[in-house]
């Protein structure tokens, strides 16, 4: 069976804590997603999502606080607009917009996280592997964006741009 690869961008106040609660409650869900913890869903740059798809993600799940509950006042509203915008961009790029999902999950909603994770994995599994028309998906060995100022200005270590090239293009299935 095809096992989709999923990147989860969770805000640390609500959804990340909700995921921790699912853990302390020993609720079980599929292991397809790996979480990147952000201070706020509003920290998420649309480019992070595009990068995830470029790097071989079959789906991206964004989790933030419920409207009105943002720890930083209104970061989640910004995310809501960005997600709507991103879905259009994805669609234009030939990526099914359903591969991106935004959900409000509070720190108390461990159950909801478990349900959403299960549903999203199923949905992406139904969509099948993401095949990017231009590059053939993961393992294309493409360089990371070279113009990221953080990479060049603030860090001594240059990105290992060829790292991906060694990885086989075949999917785990």
């Amino acid at each position, binding site marked *: 069976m095809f096992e989709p690869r999923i990147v989860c961008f969770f805000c640390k106040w609500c959804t990340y804590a909700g995921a921790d609660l699912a853990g302390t409650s020993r609720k079980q869900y599929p292991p397809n997603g790996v979480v990147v913890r*952000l201070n706020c869903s509003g*920290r998420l740059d649309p480019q992070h999502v595009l*990068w995830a798809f470029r790097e071989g993600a079959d789906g991206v799940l964004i989790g933030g606080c419920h409207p009105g509950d943002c720890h930083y006042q209104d*970061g989640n509203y910004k995310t809501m607009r960005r997600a709507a915008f991103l879905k259009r961009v994805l669609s234009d790029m030939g990526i099914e917009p359903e591969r991106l999902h935004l959900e409000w999950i509070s720190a*108390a909603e461990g159950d909801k996280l478990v349900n959403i994770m299960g549903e999203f994995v199923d949905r992406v599994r139904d969509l099948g592997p993401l095949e990017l028309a231009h590059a053939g998906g993961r393992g294309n060995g493409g360089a990371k*964006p070279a113009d990221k100022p953080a990479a060049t200005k603030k*860090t001594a270590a240059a990105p290992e741009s060829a790292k991906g090239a060694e990885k086989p293009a075949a999917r785990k299935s």
Partner: protein
Amino acid sequence: MEERIGVFVCHCGSNIAGVVDVKRVAEELGKYPGVAYSTDYTYMCSDPGQTMVKEAIKEHNLSGVIVAACSPTLHEATFRRAGRAAGVNPYQVEIANIREQCSWVHQSDKEAATEKAIKIIKTMVEKARLDEALDPIAVPMTHKALVVGGGIAGIQAALDIANAGYETILVEKGPSIGGHMAQLSETFPTLDCSQCIMTPKMVEVAQHPRVKMMTYSEIEDVSGYVGNFKVKIRKKAAYLDRDICNGCGLCMEKCPAKTPSEFDEGLADRKAIYTPFPQAVPNKPVLDREHCLYFTNDGKCGVCKKICPVQCVDYEQEDEIIEDEVGAIVVATGYDLYPIENLGEYGGGKYPDVITSLQFERMLSASGPTEGEVKRPSDGKVPETVVFLTCCGSRDPEAHMPYCSKVCCMYLTKHAMLYKHKVHDGQAYVFYIDVRTAGKGYEEFYTRAAEEDDVLYLRGKVSKIFQEDGKVVVWGADTLSGKKVEIEADMAVLGLATVPNAAARELANMLKIHTDEWGFLAEAHPKLRPVESLAPGFYLAGAAQGPKDIPEAVAQASGAASKVAHLFAEEEYHREPIIAWIDEDTCAGCRVCVSVCPYDAAEFDDEKGIAVIKEAICEGCGACIAACPSASAQQRNLTDEQVYRMVSAALEG
């Protein structure tokens, strides 16, 4: 410089190692670029575990540390301290969460869990690779606390903070402090009179030189952050100057307008100008505009104004907004009873002789509407048979609240006992699911009620109550004998579930502090941080956090106060340095960051023509970073480059 990262994989006993192949994880990570050392250990957070981390840092000259263990909310601080002790900057120590978000949630698929653990750790290695050494940002702190809620928890917290030497504002929405405890008759298991132990505390807090007590006031707005909150408090119009009022009570005596008393739970009336109870603190009335004849009848009354000897009544008074600054906030907003209206099977409040537990407290109180005599509301008759029901709305996941309200078993036992003390030949029945008596002296108290006071305990739930021919008919079951029970009683007392105060829910939203799904305030850690909110600077006390009895509420309040004192022991507050910065070379001065910053921390520097971040104000939300079109705004130790690398690592393999 080549990074030298150490990876420390914790077994957490079998919590992680029982699912994740920790040896394989440590081995795999040892081969990962930039990882200079990788190992595993049973309990990394234990003293030997921490020592192992410290020694490895020195021995392998590590530049960064990943501890793959439980959630960072638990031990990030622990390992950052360990890292610092061994010479690694605390902000170059990271936690990979392979317990809550891996081993505990993928228990049936060990292979997949192991693969995922490896990916999770790799994402953190990628992050750590670019982590900078940072120092916390020291900001000035206001050494003054705000306590919201003037019940026993709020009073205790305010007293303890003030006695520790700090100024404290105590805000109470009602006209008097005292909360529900002031309504109670006698308290279990000692049967000391609630008012006798409560009122001295009320007076003490009101007279404390470091406590500014604000009754009839509500929190309007809170902004800022720990150490530096700005609060707006709405001082509601009392329509009299409470500073001038001498509390003589003439106005209350002469006021012609009556309405059911909230304090007496509707069993007696109060006037439109009133103090909730005779021992109120402050003992000065407020005027309830909704029921005042002057306001409802075109200014035709005005008796209070005419009679007031110090002329303090002022019908033109308006709400006042008081602004202040505090460094810490204790939330002690208390509880309400679950609405009786929701219990249709027990009449939903339409039978006068089916009353709530708080109504019965008022009836038992020597200063209550019946002066302590048990008289049923419909006809004032002394009831010969009273049925007490536990779990009215509690422990009922299908229809009502699933949780145990914790105090009902005990107070209904007390009720039954006090009823028997007052009506010696009366019969008291208690219906129960389980009698829960976990507390010092509680089991003995229950035994005393059953054995010495002949309270009859029936194990079972009541299916229906109705009033017929002057009797309260109770249909229930005794599950021990397996028989149906029908009792023709004179009165029934419902032990209604404890729910969070309705206004407290709105307040929690405004303060942006977490609640659980029922609206009880969520503690930072269910076991180890029970008096703190996850939101820094907020502390929790009393039944607002969950059902609890008086000693627990007092203990938690003192705990919260000691946390506040701990915070205030430092001159400055040290903030997390995970904030935004602007690359001056690439910023085009478009001001998008200025427009999206919720804190006005990003501002435009006219001289340089670019944006700058005010470090003391930036909260690190990252809104400016996501919005910046040239990627000139970045977050310390969570740069876009770090996010890209983490994403790539998450998708590897």
